């Protein structure tokens, strides 16, 4: 809402400095962060929130600015509409479901000419183009008082029996802007003789528009159903200053006053005489202010300020809410333009905002802490634990976007049908919710093309459709460039060790489509659960992303990880030293080293550890720790166990021992 400073001052004196005024207006709810100087005049740019349609007018803002100065704004004087001396009859059928109040009157014998310089100047300050006195007056009064007005060329009516109705769909309409439409269903329209002369609330019709030769006019000030106006505006993708006001709720109680003001200015600036009775589908008496009560103790309990009753009453009085004190309660009379004041809390806000939020003391809540876990409880400690482990093994945390594109999904060889889709994406780059974090990590590899070695991880949600049964599990994903399989497997081993997750199985992923290399990546199984996938990424996918290096990655399901993680159990370190020896073995192809090591360990409880310490061609050197917690093992003991090891691995894996 653009507010020229001088126009504001018509209604209220302003003594605050400009910058202070702007902040104080923001403080009470009219966010005014900028202003411009246009033709030497200051024009404020005020942001009006949807709950205060009464601020969509210069006078509405002036009312608040007056309160900032501790006074009330000067009401514009409304001149009664003279009784008709001309004869331009007009009738209109109005449906109250379409228009809550409808007022109008005809004027005979006007002269259309440019509006006076002061009016043109003001219109230009708010970026409206002056057209002629009649149209300009309707815009001027709409800006001043906040109720939209339209004026028709009476002589262009095909009949003076108008009807307001809902469009059936298909009706032709050309607006005063010269744009033609075929109207959809359920737009509010006014017709004479079966043609549309007004797209109500949005634009007037070209066929009845004002021109320089107009002599007789019909002025109407309708208040329309906000929802219908909004729907039409959205469907046709047209909006106007008028539709903007109607969507938020124009003031029915002010319709007649606006008409009076328009008529007054029209008679003064365009001449003519009133030519009909004033049409009014309601009584002004219907808009008497409504009572709303607030208890003083409630104000004080919630606001906790040391405010005297006198001050509360004063604030409400300045806001034109006519407060009276009665037995600890304040009874206010809410004028029709304050459609936002409906419950006690609304009045409490009025007191608080005018008292000034920055004048309040600050306290901390007194209540107790809930000891039961709330619904949707989230254990962030596990998240931090995982992130710390990843940081500890030298990975950099990324935080990438959840939305992705069809192109990326296809490049990743993922199934488009699993993805939840946005109906109105901002661009095709952000159309689907991702089902894996890995594609973004691939993009990260490309962004950091200068790095020879790159280790990235991310902890975030992925999303699975269909929408009826959508799931949003948290995943821990990581990628490494410049490494080998044992590097990414090492991360998995570290994680599972730190989380005290026990034995697990690996099965090849085997899928020919998808992100993973079917033979060089595997699914990690733990009891009946799948922890995730680890291994080399599919060379086809890498080709699609134009990445030349081999990449290894992991993607683990956080919930499953946490389900299987345990607390550490302490084991006393052995008092007696271990016997350590290295065994060099030739391992035939196809024997899983991990399985071999597990096998060796299971030979005896006196084997406390087995590690692979060296490899050369097909020869693998394993270091074996022999240890008895209760005594030092003798060479004979060790020899015994060793021969059991060699026997077992020969039987199971066909491994021969080279002496």
């Amino acid at each position, binding site marked *: 809402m653009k507010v020229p400073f001088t126009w504001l001052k018509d209604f209220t004196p302003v003594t605050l400095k400009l910058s202070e005024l702007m902040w104080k207006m923001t403080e009470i709810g009219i966010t005014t962060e900028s202003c411009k100087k246009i033709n030497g005049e200051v024009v404020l740019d005020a942001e009006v929130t949807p709950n205060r349609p009464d601020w969509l007018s210069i006078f509405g803002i002036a009312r608040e600015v007056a309160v900032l100065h501790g006074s009330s704004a000067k009401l514009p004087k409304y001149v009664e509409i003279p009784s008709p001396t001309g004869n331009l009859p007009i009738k209109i059928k109005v449906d109250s479901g379409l228009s809550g109040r409808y007022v109008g009157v005809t004027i005979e014998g006007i002269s259309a000419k440019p509006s006076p310089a002061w009016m043109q100047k003001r219109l230009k300050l708010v970026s409206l183009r002056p057209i002629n006195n009649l149209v300009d007056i309707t815009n001027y009064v709409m800006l001043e008082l906040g109720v939209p007005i339209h004026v028709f060329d009476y002589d262009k009516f095909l009949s003076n029996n108008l009807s307001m109705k809902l469009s059936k769909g298909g009706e032709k309409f050309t607006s005063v802007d010269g744009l033609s439409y075929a109207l959809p269903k359920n737009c509010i329209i006014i017709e004479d003789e079966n043609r549309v002369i007004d797209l109500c609330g949005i634009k007037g019709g070209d066929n009845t528009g004002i021109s320089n030769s107009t002599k007789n006019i019909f002025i109407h000030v309708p208040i329309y159903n906000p929802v219908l106006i909004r729907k039409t505006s959205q469907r046709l993708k047209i909006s106007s200053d008028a539709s903007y006001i109607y969507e938020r709720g124009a003031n029915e109680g002010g319709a007649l006053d606006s008409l009076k003001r328009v008529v007054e200015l029209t008679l003064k600036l365009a001449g003519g005489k009133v030519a009909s009775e004033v049409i009014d589908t309601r009584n002004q008496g219907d808009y008497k202010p409504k009572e709303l009560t607030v208890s003083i103790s409630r104000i004080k309990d919630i606001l906790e300020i040391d405010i005297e009753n006198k001050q509360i009453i004063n604030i409400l009085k300045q806001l034109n809410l006519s407060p009276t004190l009665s037995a600890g309660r304040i009874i206010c009379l809410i004028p029709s333009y304050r459609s936002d004041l409906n419950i006690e809390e609304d009045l409490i806000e009025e007191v608080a905002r005018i008292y000034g939020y920055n004048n309040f003391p600050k306290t901390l*809540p007194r209540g107790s802490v809930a000891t039961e876990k709330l619904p949707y409880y989230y254990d*962030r400690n596990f998240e931090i634990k995982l992130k710390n482990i990843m940081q500890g093994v030298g990975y950099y945390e990324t935080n990438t976007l959840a939305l992705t594109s069809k192109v990326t999904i296809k490049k990743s060889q993922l199934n488009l049908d699993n993805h939840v889709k946005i109906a109105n994406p901002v661009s095709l780059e952000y159309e689907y919710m991702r089902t894996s974090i890995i594609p973004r990590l691939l993009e*990260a590899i490309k962004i950091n093309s200068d790095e020879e070695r790159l280790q990235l991880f991310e902890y975030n949600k992925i999303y699975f459709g269909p929408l009826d049964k959508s799931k949003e599990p948290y995943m821990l994903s990581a990628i490494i460039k410049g490494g080998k399989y044992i590097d990414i497997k090492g991360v998995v081993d570290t994680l599972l060790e730190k989380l005290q997750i026990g034995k697990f199985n690996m099965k090849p992923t085997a899928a020919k489509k998808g992100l993973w290399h079917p033979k060089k990546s595997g699914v990690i199984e733990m009891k009946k659960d799948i922890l995730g996938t680890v291994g080399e990424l599919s060379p086809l996918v890498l080709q699609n992303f134009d990445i030349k290096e081999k990449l290894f990655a992991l993607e683990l399901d956080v919930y499953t990880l946490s389900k299987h993680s345990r607390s550490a159990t302490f084991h006393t370190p052995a008092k007696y030293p271990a016997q350590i020896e290295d065994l060099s073995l030739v391992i035939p192809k196809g024997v899983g080293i991990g399985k071999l090591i597990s096998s060796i360990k299971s030979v005896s409880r006196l084997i406390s550890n087995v590690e692979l310490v060296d490899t050369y061609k097909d020869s693998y050197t394993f270091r074996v720790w022999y240890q008895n917690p209760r005594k030092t093992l003798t060479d004979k003991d060790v020899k015994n166990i060793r021969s059991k090891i060699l026997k077992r691995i020969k039987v199971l894996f066909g491994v021969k021992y080279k002496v």
Partner: protein
Amino acid sequence: MQEKIQNIKNEALAQIMEAKNRSELEKLRISYLGRNGKVQEIFKKLKKIKIEERKHVGNLANGAKKAIENAIDEKKIELASDLLNLKEWFDLSMPGKKNGIGYLHPQTQVLTEILDIFKYLGYQVADGPEIETDYYNFEILNFPKDHPARDAQQTMFFDTSGTKYKPGEMVPRTHTSSMQGRVMERTKPPFKVIVPGRCFRYEQVDASHGIEFWHVEGFTVDKNVRFTDLLGTIEYVLKSLFGSDAKIRFATTYFPFVEPGLDAYLQCTVCSGKGCTFCKRTGWSEIMPAGMIHPSVLKKTGIDPNKWNGFAFAIGLSRVVTLRYKIDDLRILHTPDVRILKQF
């Protein structure tokens, strides 16, 4: 006696000076200072000396003992001089080898800080769906259908074709406030809840706007919650995050789910209020919209507004991160460039 002590001392010092290695030195130490050493013999003989002379002789013996000990220590150092001297120059300034360190994302770090502040205030962390229903995202929060209040949150909608939902019924949540309805429907007060999470809006992407951004939602319901509790909580949180010198001010604003509604502004930490690109030249940054929970929201979730009330707020996490580290482009927060990630 005194002469004897003097002789022992001189003899010891001379031999120590001549010692060629540590084991020789150790032998000397034992022979003089050991349990049966020459100095110890003197101490044993002290009892036989006349009382008037005992003190003086004792002092002499102690002096001798100390001199011998010092001589041994210094000789040790001299013998080790080989080890303690340098043949070549040693470079203390050599860059250290940093073991492969990883980095946590700046947002993770700031979020941890924020959640710790709230843990201190007694809040529990909750997490909920980003794929949300219109009901929880808008309706239960007092945004009527077809009302301009919804325009302030430019909403994207999910494609519902082939599902049981009507168009417009499912949305990527536009704010974490969607969790208010979910939690409040399923639990009884009193409670304090904090919800960090990703939100989505239909925006043209630029340096200060993104389609995806992070919020931290908080809300509490209890008996007799005061407006001043809300102001105090906001001040406490912002000062904990930005320092006790942080300047804060409040302005009235409107959200359908709170009444009174307000916005908390933080004086721009980048330009100290002078005006810069971070604060759109105003010197202040909007950082925490908040308000007292609207009674109709409480009613809709089955909480009696006559017995209970509360407040709610949202912290723009993405904005806090950019202010904290003086990052001038929101897009940096989701760009996985290691030159960025390494800085935190």
